[in-house]
């Protein structure tokens, strides 16, 4: 009995989680004239892809989606490279002032984005870089969070492994690339997931720095679409549906790992 009750509650909850997505799909297939109708028209009569066609007519949607994808990938790759290299230095290369420098890295971790938005905007404007891909990417090239996370992982790699490589005549670059990196793969994967999601979802910074549709990312493009089509909810929902698809596909593949990464972050 209690068992059945548990299924009912969990199942109902799952429906509440899924319904907004399903309703977005249904709305996106509704013809323009029927969207604002009350009560909602549930008959599939007249349903079609009109809203999607309209979406593609009014904004360079594929380009915006492509922007979001490649910016997220580039930002993730940059962060993986820069953070893992710094992590190696902080864990394995002693030099005077290393502790102090690491403290500076950690301090930047605490400063929230909204503190940086105005001066970053001015910095970009000074160098004539507003409305460029570079401007969107720049603040995400390095990540203090990544350095911290990966440094912990590098420190857990037994020193004996390095020493064996040194005896074989390997320098730091080879130890880093061939010994350490393969051994911290789980931490790299976790960090890659967080980095990708952060870039894919970021809104405030692109909102500030991008004006032209051809450089927009999806969140910004969607917010803009909503601003233009305040009552054409079928078009807005079409945009939302299309923008969810890529992340959904990625999520289906990496779902176990994504959830495990988040679960772990709370156990530390």
């Amino acid at each position, binding site marked *: 009995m209690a068992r059945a009750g548990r299924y009912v509650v969990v199942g109902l909850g799952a429906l509440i989680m899924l319904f907004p997505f399903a309703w977005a799909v249904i709305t996106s297939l509704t013809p323009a004239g029927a969207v604002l109708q009350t009560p909602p028209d549930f008959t599939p009569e007249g349903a079609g892809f009109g809203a999607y066609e309209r979406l593609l007519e009014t904004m360079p949607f594929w380009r915006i989606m492509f922007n979001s994808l490649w910016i997220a990938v580039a930002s993730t790759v940059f962060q993986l490279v820069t953070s893992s290299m710094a992590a190696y230095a902080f864990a394995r290369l002693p030099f005077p002032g290393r502790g102090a420098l690491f403290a500076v890295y950690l301090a930047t971790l605490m400063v929230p984005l909204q503190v*940086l938005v105005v001066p970053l905007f*001015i910095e970009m404007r000074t160098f004539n870089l507003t409305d460029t891909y570079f401007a969107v990417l720049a603040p995400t090239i*390095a990540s203090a969070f990544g350095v911290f996370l990966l440094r912990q992982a590098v420190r857990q790699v037994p020193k004996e492994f390095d020493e064996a490589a040194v005896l074989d005549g390997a320098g730091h670059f080879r130890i880093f690339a061939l010994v350490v990196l393969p051994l911290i793969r789980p931490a790299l994967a976790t960090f890659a997931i967080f980095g990708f999601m952060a870039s894919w979802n970021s809104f405030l910074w692109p909102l500030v720095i991008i004006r032209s549709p051809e450089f927009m990312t999806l969140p910004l493009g969607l917010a803009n679409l909503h601003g233009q089509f305040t009552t054409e909810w079928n078009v807005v929902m079409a945009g939302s549906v299309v923008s969810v698809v890529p992340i959904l596909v990625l999520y289906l593949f990496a779902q176990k790992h994504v959830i495990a990464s988040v*679960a772990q972050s709370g156990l530390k």
Partner: protein
Amino acid sequence: MTLTETPPAASVKQPIRPPRKRLRYALTVAVFLLPSAVPLLLFTLIPMAGSLWTSLHEWNLITPMKWVGLDNYADLLSSEETRAAFGHTLYFIAGYLPLVYAGGLGLAMLLNRAMKGRDLFRAIYFLPVVTSWVVVALLWKWLLNPASGIVNWAIGLVGLEGPGWWTDPDWAMPSIILASAWKDLGFVMIILLAGLQAIPNEYLEAARVDGANAWQRFRRITLPLLSPSTFFVVVISLINGFQVFDQVHVMTGGGPAGATQVVVEQVYNLTFKYGRAGAASALSWLLFAVVLVVTLIQVRGQRRWVNYG
């Protein structure tokens, strides 16, 4: 988080190096560090300094800056708008945090036992977490559309009249809270579920043998042993809650009638609507100070209630 150095292995550190080798070593260190140090300097440290500097000026982003010292801070501290912005932000947190915590804990307890399809349910609850805030805000703005939204239609079915949701000053913040809780429920659930799974079953078993009922076991064993996860959720939620922006900007833009004007929305408007970059920078530092103090108080206070076993 310790800054202590571990003694380097003998073969990695070579204490006495000939000058050429020393130069090479310094170069190696530089190559490893510069790719992160340069961007952090350019895109975090310099803007930080710039923000502090700007906060001491009056500036509309166009004409030259005018030094005003601490006036921006003084003005903000005495202004009605600042108080309102922090008030709205606290209102958001007060609604959002209990909702996601209670919901997340309930779900985590339900899913913490062997059941068929558990992984599937977990994946479904987590789906909104990977969806962007903008999409979530749009989905809910449509669901909660006062005239044509499906939620008010459903409320109408049982003979009641649904509220004006995000168009009504009294209901706008609850609308934002609802959408935010829906998005983050799965995140909180996953964190708490991991915490629950780390509790040894023997403790609960032993309590059962001693005659403790379900509520007593939950109250005396589960909750105290879950406190590190609870602590994590509360700290993260408060940090994110104080910085709430995306969903507010999309759902209400701070309205109607300023009813959802939260602090970061205020920072945005001060800069880009009212041309008051100095005041905006000062406000962002004020918010940072508040978040820092709140977080430090929690870290300090955790000894009283967080049980690390």
